[in-house]
């Protein structure tokens, strides 16, 4: 049995055609059948059954009553351990609930498990996790594909129909890129729309929670559930959260869509450019006007990101010292040795690489040349978007430079791996919202995503446009 949408399952529940217990049984069975994909770091049937009893008592007007949700294992959850995909947080049992997961619990959702991710969300293929690779459910026999990353487990969980929605975090593309690879909808809202409280920190000026779903309407339902101000995150915004799902409107008459010339890159396949072209034509047919725009500093976004994100990570990850929680190296003779060996054994290669780069660019004598310089270029990148949005309502681009690639393909060269985020990082640096929806397939039948970018706190605009485009493939 496959449920197509949140509203469909909610109706069945309200009409007593299915019980919360049956929903739990259905998804437990599905997850057990797909264990070989390694989508979940934590999955425990008993924990799901415990929730059933609580959820059954809730009134039907709870927006997500009984809806199965998978949670990226970067969100602290009180009833399930949290690892951030790292050995250093093995056996960590948070004593508090993250803001986002608490909001989902409050609305009655059922957590089916914690999904795999790149270690501390650092990666683009869910292949840096201490708990092994996740396999893209769309893989053909014999050729396992990457689900993208870092929220690869959450994207794969929706694609494999192991939940109706999942949480992700996006620092440089970690929701949008895996959504594109797995053929699902993924939205990264404006920086500050959802509280970061209880999310293991990677790069705090960029980290943003968001959601995956099977369709745009479900994404809008989930987003309005997790958004909101929280005084425990001083960067969380006080804007009023619109009722995105009720305001859904596919009418694009008079809208102006920016097409940035800098997103036409050498070496990008014709198929990706074709999908982009198709989406442009479709928007035009639906009454929108196309405007060619320029985001002049686009090419500098990736190098800027790979200074700022590691710098913030090196500072954020200083807390993993083997004293307060998680893994501690055995047989040490001094405090310093305990720190050094704990971190050496507890962190994986990519995390170490980023901590060291971050430490270097923040160190005395190099701070101005690297970190400060990157913050200045970041300002120019953000300004490009602000200026451009004076002339257009939203921007349309491809989501990723390729379809899902075979696992392990791009591991040797870090810069090649970093290029996965070429279309997603600029919006992250500017803090603007972005949504990726599947829009066509390549010659191997793999989904390709397109990305819509909007003004700060104007999620409704890009959700509406995505809603309109989604109809082309219904």
């Amino acid at each position, binding site marked *: 049995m496959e449920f197509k949408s949140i509203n469909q399952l909610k109706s069945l529940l309200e009409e007593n055609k299915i019980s919360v217990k049956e929903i739990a049984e259905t998804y437990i069975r599905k997850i057990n059948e797909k264990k070989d994909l390694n989508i979940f770091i934590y999955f425990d049937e008993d924990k799901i059954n415990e929730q059933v009893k609580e959820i059954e008592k809730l009134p039907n007007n709870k927006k997500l009553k009984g809806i199965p949700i998978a949670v990226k294992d970067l969100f602290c959850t009180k009833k399930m351990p949290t690892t951030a995909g790292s050995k250093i947080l093995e*056996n*960590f*049992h948070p*004593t508090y609930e993250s803001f986002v997961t608490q909001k989902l619990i409050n609305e009655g959702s059922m957590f089916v498990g914690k999904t795999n991710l790149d270690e501390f969300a650092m990666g683009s293929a869910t292949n840096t996790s201490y708990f092994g690779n996740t396999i893209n459910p769309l893989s053909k026999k014999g050729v396992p594909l990457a689900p993208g990353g870092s929220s690869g487990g959450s994207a794969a969980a929706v694609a494999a129909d192991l939940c109706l929605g999942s949480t992700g975090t996006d620092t440089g593309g970690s929701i949008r890129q895996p959504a594109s690879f797995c053929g699902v909808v993924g939205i990264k809202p404006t*920086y*500050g729309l959802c509280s970061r409280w209880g999310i293991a920190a990677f790069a705090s*000026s960029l980290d943003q929670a968001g959601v995956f779903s099977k369709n745009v309407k479900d994404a809008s339902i989930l987003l309005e559930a997790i958004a909101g101000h929280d*005084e425990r995150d*001083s*960067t969380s*915004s*006080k804007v009023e959260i619109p009722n995105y799902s009720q305001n859904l409107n596919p009418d694009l008459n008079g809208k102006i869509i920016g097409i940035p010339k800098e997103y036409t890159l050498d070496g990008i396949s014709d198929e990706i450019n074709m999908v982009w072209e198709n989406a442009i034509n479709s928007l035009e047919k639906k009454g929108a006007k196309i405007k060619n725009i320029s985001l002049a*500093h686009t*090419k*500098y976004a990736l*190098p*800027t990101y*790979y*200074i700022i994100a590691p710098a913030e990570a090196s500072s954020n990850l*200083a807390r993993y*010292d*083997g004293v307060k*929680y*998680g*893994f*501690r190296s055995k047989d040490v003779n*001094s*405090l*310093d*040795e*305990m*720190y*050094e060996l704990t971190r*050496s054994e507890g*962190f994986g*290669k990519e995390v*170490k*690489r980023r*901590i*060291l*780069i971050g*430490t*270097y660019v923040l160190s005395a004598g190099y701070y101005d040349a*690297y970190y*400060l310089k*990157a*913050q*200045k*270029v*970041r*300002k*120019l990148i*953000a300004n490009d978007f602000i200026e451009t949005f004076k002339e257009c309502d939203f921007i349309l681009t491809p989501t990723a430079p390729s379809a899902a690639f075979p696992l392990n393909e791009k591991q040797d*060269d*870090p*810069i090649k791996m970093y290029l996965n985020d070429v279309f997603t990082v600029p919006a992250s640096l*500017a*803090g603007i919202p972005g949504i990726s929806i599947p829009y066509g397939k390549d010659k191997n039948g793999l989904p390709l995503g397109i990305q819509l970018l909007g003004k*700060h*706190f104007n999620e409704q605009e890009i959700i509406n446009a995505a809603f309109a485009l989604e109809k082309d493939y219904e």
Partner: protein
Amino acid sequence: MKLDTNTINKIAKLARIRLSEDEAKDLLKDMNSILDWVEQLNEVNTDSVEPLANISSSTLPQRKDEAKDINSSDEILKNSPDKLEDYFVVPKVVE
């Protein structure tokens, strides 16, 4: 080549991460190629550009300085790999 083995070991010491010789060699290669790649930012004229540290459009709010009891010491200590009574235990620091 921006980094040599000495520099990388110095950074590793600052970050409290012990590297094996092989690891240091590997990381040296990767980090040098990453640092060469980010060098392209020098093409951008950033004279008179303010660095962007906080993208949040609102200014950071102030709140009343009030004590709140949100964590018990039991909860704080719960995940510690080694504890004694109300304390975290670490290797001896003072002889």
